[in-house]
């Protein structure tokens, strides 16, 4: 009987972990699984299947979940059931929700594998010692952070989900669900346990550091009441304060946060990085820059070869601004030439104001590195300092202790002064600092930054009828929808594959 063949152009698991030089490559994959669709940029060797490779990108689906479902974004295209997201008519068969779910568990499984292969015993067995051992432990802590981040997205979107850790072997089995609160507790304990081994803030760009872990904890606690029923605003303040104390500073020019050289900004706490030559794909920042460009917008102004004429916003979002020209509040990044404020036809790009926020040009006007104009250099700021300021303010308003309203107002006005180009004309006074103001301010500050759905749910304005926007519920004027929609359905595909799973209320 002939022997096993050995694959050319790949390594076996044993070969990988026997040589420390490989560890960084595995770590890079853990990060890139948020940014890219697979092992061949821009496409060709996908991580997950069952959906178009570019669509199945983590950040692209996270955008679809967090933005298309809200007042901030509506999409024109005819891709499968994509319109059901903005219309809030999705069901458990929705392929975009399914892809998000699969992406989350892909990240979990990938990190589980690395964590499994880098236990103290395995590292010792592979002869990893000294400086390499310290680095390996740090990589492992970062993997725990990335897994916690994915699990946070999981409970935020889906509630109770199947739970797998490094203790489960790779194979085919039926993982049991854990409750939202149980996984919340797991994320919390993982982040706290990992933090000690993580790098100091800003030790290396692109890597998750202690500030990233603290920021994730702050965001977790801010939403704790939604996840567990228990308010944890005090903890949110604690961790927001830790982040604020870590030496980040607001980017003086708001627009620079979204340009091809935003990696230079001292405001970004945790980015998902992209590069026009080295980190390329059809999801992530490529989607975020190409999809909103259409109509009379000039692709060249965005440093790309052409827009995809896909995404624009609702008039309800526009109304968050008293001046939508962008002359006072620089965050009003609307493109109105040839665009109607009203979305009369969901399939027409020129219905609804277009958005000009992310671009593939640098702060000095240079176009990104990819000469084809396909793939931008711009990084996605997943966590940035302004968010920490607003978390602090909101948690104080929600009654958390350890912070105070004066500091809260100061932080909010720091954000607003920057938004007004350094002018204090947009600053607010203490009575104006209300929870409703915070929600609207977050809308203005974080348009397209993938916080919106979570924010609206925390404020009770996502599902239900408290806040209505164009085409919510599938009608032009918008209508109330079932509050069951505050949770996404567990995809029917996984219900079929894993008979132990229980569907969320209101879904089949």
């Amino acid at each position, binding site marked *: 009987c*002939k022997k096993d063949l050995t694959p050319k152009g790949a390594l076996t698991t044993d070969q990988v972990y026997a040589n420390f030089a490989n560890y960084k*490559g595995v770590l890079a994959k853990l990060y890139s699984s948020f940014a890219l669709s697979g092992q061949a940029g821009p496409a060709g060797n996908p991580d997950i299947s069952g959906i178009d490779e570019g669509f199945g990108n983590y950040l692209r689906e996270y955008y679809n979940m967090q933005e298309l479902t809200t007042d901030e974004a509506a999409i024109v295209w005819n891709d499968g059931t994509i319109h059901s997201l903005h219309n809030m008519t999705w*069901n458990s068969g929705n392929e975009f929700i399914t892809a998000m779910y699969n992406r989350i568990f892909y990240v979990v499984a990938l990190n589980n594998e690395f964590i499994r292969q880098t236990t103290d015993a395995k590292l010792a067995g592979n002869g990893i010692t000294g400086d390499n051992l310290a680095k390996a432990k740090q990589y492992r802590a970062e993997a725990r952070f990335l897994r916690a981040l994915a699990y946070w997205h999981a409970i935020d979107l889906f509630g109770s989900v199947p739970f797998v850790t490094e203790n489960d072997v*790779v*194979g*085919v089995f039926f*993982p049991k669900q854990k409750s939202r609160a149980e996984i919340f507790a797991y994320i919390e304990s993982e982040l706290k346990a990992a933090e000690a081994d993580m790098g100091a803030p800003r030790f290396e760009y692109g890597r998750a550091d202690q500030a990233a872990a603290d920021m994730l904890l702050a965001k977790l606690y801010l939403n704790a009441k939604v996840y567990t029923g228990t308010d944890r605003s005090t903890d949110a303040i604690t961790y927001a304060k830790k982040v604020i104390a870590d030496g980040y500073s607001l980017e003086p020019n708001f627009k620079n946060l979204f340009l091809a050289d935003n990696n230079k900004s001292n405001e970004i706490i945790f980015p998902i990085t992209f590069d026009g030559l*080295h*980190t390329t794909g059809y999801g992530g920042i490529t989607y975020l820059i190409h999809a909103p460009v259409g109509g009379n917008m000039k692709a060249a102004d965005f440093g790309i070869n052409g827009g995809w004429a896909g995404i624009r916003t609702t008039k309800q979002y526009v109304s968050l601004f008293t001046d939508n020209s962008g002359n006072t509040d620089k965050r009003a990044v609307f493109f109105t030439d040839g665009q109607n404020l009203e979305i009369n036809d969901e399939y027409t790009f020129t219905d609804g104001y277009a958005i000009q926020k992310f671009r593939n040009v640098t702060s000095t006007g240079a176009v990104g590195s990819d000469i084809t104009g396909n793939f931008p250099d711009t990084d996605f700021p997943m966590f940035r300092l302004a968010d920490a300021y607003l978390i602090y303010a909101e948690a104080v308003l929600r009654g958390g202790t350890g912070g105070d309203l004066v500091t809260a107002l100061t932080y909010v006005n720091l954000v607003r002064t920057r938004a007004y180009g350094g002018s204090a004309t947009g600053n607010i006074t203490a009575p104006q600092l209300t929870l409703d103001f915070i929600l609207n301010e977050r809308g203005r500050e974080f348009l397209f930054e993938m916080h919106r759905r979570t924010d609206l749910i925390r404020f009770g304005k996502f599902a239900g009828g408290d806040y209505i926007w164009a085409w919510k519920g599938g009608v032009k004027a918008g209508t109330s929808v079932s509050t069951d929609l505050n949770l996404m359905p567990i995809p*029917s595909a996984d219900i079929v594959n894993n008979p132990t799973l229980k569907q969320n209320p209101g879904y089949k």
Partner: protein
Amino acid sequence: IKGKVLDETNAPLPGAAVTIDGTTIGATTDGNGSYTITGVKTGNVTVTAKFLGYVALKKVVTVGSTAVEVNFSLKPDNQNLNEVVVVGYGTQKKKDLTGSVTSISAKDFNQGPVTTPEQLITGKVAGVQITSNSGAPGSGSTIRIRGGASLNASNDPLIVIDGIPLANTSISGVSNPLSLINPNDIESYNILKDASATAIYGSRASNGVIIITTKKGKGDKDVHINFDSKTALSKITKEVSVLTADQFRTAVKTQSPGQANLLGTANTDWQSLIYRPAYTYDNNLSITGGIKGVPYRLSIGYLDQDGIVKTDNLKRTTAAFNISHDFLRGSLKVDLNLKGSYTDSHFAAGAIGNAIGFDPTQPVYSNDKTKFGGYFEWLDSSGNPNTLAPRNPVGLLNEQDAQGKGKRGIGTLSLNYVFPFLKELQASATFGGDLSDGDGYTFIPASAASNFTQGGSYSKYFNENYTYNTDYYLKYSKDLKDIKSHVDIQAGYSYQYFSTYFRGSQQYKADKTTPVGTPSLPSWGEYYIESPFARLNYSFNDKYLLTASIRDDRSSRFSDLHRNGYFPSVAFAWRAKEESFLKSVDVLSDLKFRVSYGITGQQDIGTGLSKYFPYLAIYEPSNSAAQYQFGNAFVNTLRSDAYNADIKWEQTATVNAGLDFGFLNGRINGSIDLYNKKTKDLLIFTPIPAGTNLSNYITANIGNLTTKGVDFNINFIAIDSKDINWTLGYNVTLNQRKITNISLTGDPNQTIAVTGIPGGVGNTIGLFKAGQNPGAFYVYQQVYDQNGLPLEGVYVDRNKNGSSVDDKYLYKQSDPKVFMGFNSNFTYKKWNLGFSARANLGNYLYNAQSAANGAYAGVKFAGYLGNLPSSVLQTQFQQYQLYSDYYVENASFLRMDYATLGYTFGTLGKHNLRASFNVSNVFVITKYKGLDPEINGGVDNNFYPRPRVYTLGLNLSL
């Protein structure tokens, strides 16, 4: 000359023809079988007696002045039954077969401009469906024997050429690897359909086996030269129906008045501008003969075929050489076959969809000759080509230079040794190799609109495939007269090794030096299958036949634990005609019943690391365009790939019951087979519970599929007389596939979306589901108004829950329920008239051409206009209704594949000249509204039209 013509039982044969060779003199026998011929010149003459179904007999007679008596005793012509059929690892007489095997020899091949081998037998074999993939030169075909037994794993049959099982891989720069074999070199096809016939090929045989034997030398001293030349003209028969320029102007003005300013004043039929009448020249020269008794054959072919899409061209040079020799006083037979080919293709750009969708009111050329090659293009507000708009199809064709070159060499050396001291024992060894490589480039100038932003494009590619095959066997044959038995016992070993390599490639700007993007990584693939096998043939009293075989395959695709797969078969046949009670029934010349059962396997899940090593935990590196940034450095990533340690063989158990019959000495003959194939442990690329593996899909042995059917064929010699011969053939197949399970847990609600469609990324039209045909369409049920026109967006609420959103259903299927072939060949003296036709029934096609573009939304995209299919005039759809069953159309058809007229000028000395005129793709009768009802996969989108071809052929034998 006078006498009698008698049959093998000495009964008179009335109506037999007796002729004097080289003259027109002759006679026909009377009711007593007697004949008389007068007026014969004295001297030696040759007299021939002929009767249908009997072997003609010649006698040399010396004629004097008195009557000479010449009697003939004719023997039945059992040529059909004594015909030797090639089976796996050997040959068998047709009468001894227990399995379902169809043999097609060169005389029955399809006529006309056949440029790739599989087209020789399209429509000829019951149970075998051959569908050409497009009308492009050298394009491949999809071959399905009894529908295919797999879902995700390959459904292609195993093809064996002169003893080498071919790899099922494509070659870069070659549109179809089979097209590298010259059809003119092929002597015969043998198609193995049931498990009794195929199980000896084990794991590669679930979808049937096609054995191709090439022509060999004859061994006489004379040198025979044959020159065959064909010239063909191909013309498009139909264009996709789209709005005319005037209809389009009206549509834009009424539906999208804001865009009316974009309309042009031209009237351009874009489709007519990309197609052309195309010529094909195919010349073949063969030389056969024997050098000192050693037979050889040498052939050279040259094909130059233009596609009907402008700039499309294939040039192919082929050479084949065969030599055989007996050594050691005939006990060692050596057979060497060498084939080589070289193709040079020029590929047309993908202009078909652009021609269908381009605004007919725009001119071909713009006023600005300096930009984009002077072609009219849709521009964005920066003056650059609008990347969302269609590109000018004429510009696409003329500005792309895409060439591919393919080389393939196939060689086999066969040795067969009969032991002189034990004649019953023979040893056989075959060594074969198949080496192919393909390379090419695509160049687009900087001025071209299609790659304008990056400054044109230049990229090269290279790919090499290598297959090595050896097999050895010992065969012992013994007549056991005492017990009226004959036994063949055969045991052997086969080793097949497959290797493929793709060089990494880099794209450049049109300057060919500035890199664009990052290079792709090279990739390698290899696997082997090694297999001991054994077979027993036993016959008793020449009436009862038993065949049993077993093969033990070991594929490197599976782990040590699951590597072995055992594939047994057993079959029994009863030659009922040999029974005494039927022997005297003269009208019945053959009757044989066959039953077989066997298991075949499947391991061909595709190419790529995860397919060659699906069981192994491996880490795969990224290319340099999928790195990740840490600090200022970009790090190549390593991905732990999903794997399935438990992956194993897919198995198909086939039951076949068949009947072969012949009447009137084989004048009417045929067979009917009923089959039932049950595939278990299907190798499916399947979704798995989230979080359990390193992707959301793995290839796993999940699910069951059944295929049931009947295939029937009949041949009929309608007329066989001195001047007229007319033969007819008909075959029909009823075939139905059904998925019985595709879930890990047996959950009938498991679904897997399949078959992508245009009109939105990631949209699919098919759905695998238990209880359903794998080719069913997953659509909404359209509601129609009182005039029978579809109501936009209104679908039947099938589950009556107040909404139709969740009411997609599985509707119809893409594979035919019934398919049939019909052919006729009529000869009158030197004239010959033949045709072949095929019909498919119950097959449906999703008209994506209409669905994806059939709405007025198409004229509302900002900044450009795109033409609409004519169906929009009927539907009046504003938005695309991709999933309406309105677009699932009945694509049943009757197609006349060819009609041919030939004339043989007859012998000019030893020479023979024949001329023929052939029309192929003569007509298609169908209700289908699109271009062509016969499209693989069930989705009609931008199909390269099959042209009608007029061919003039000349064949000269020297």
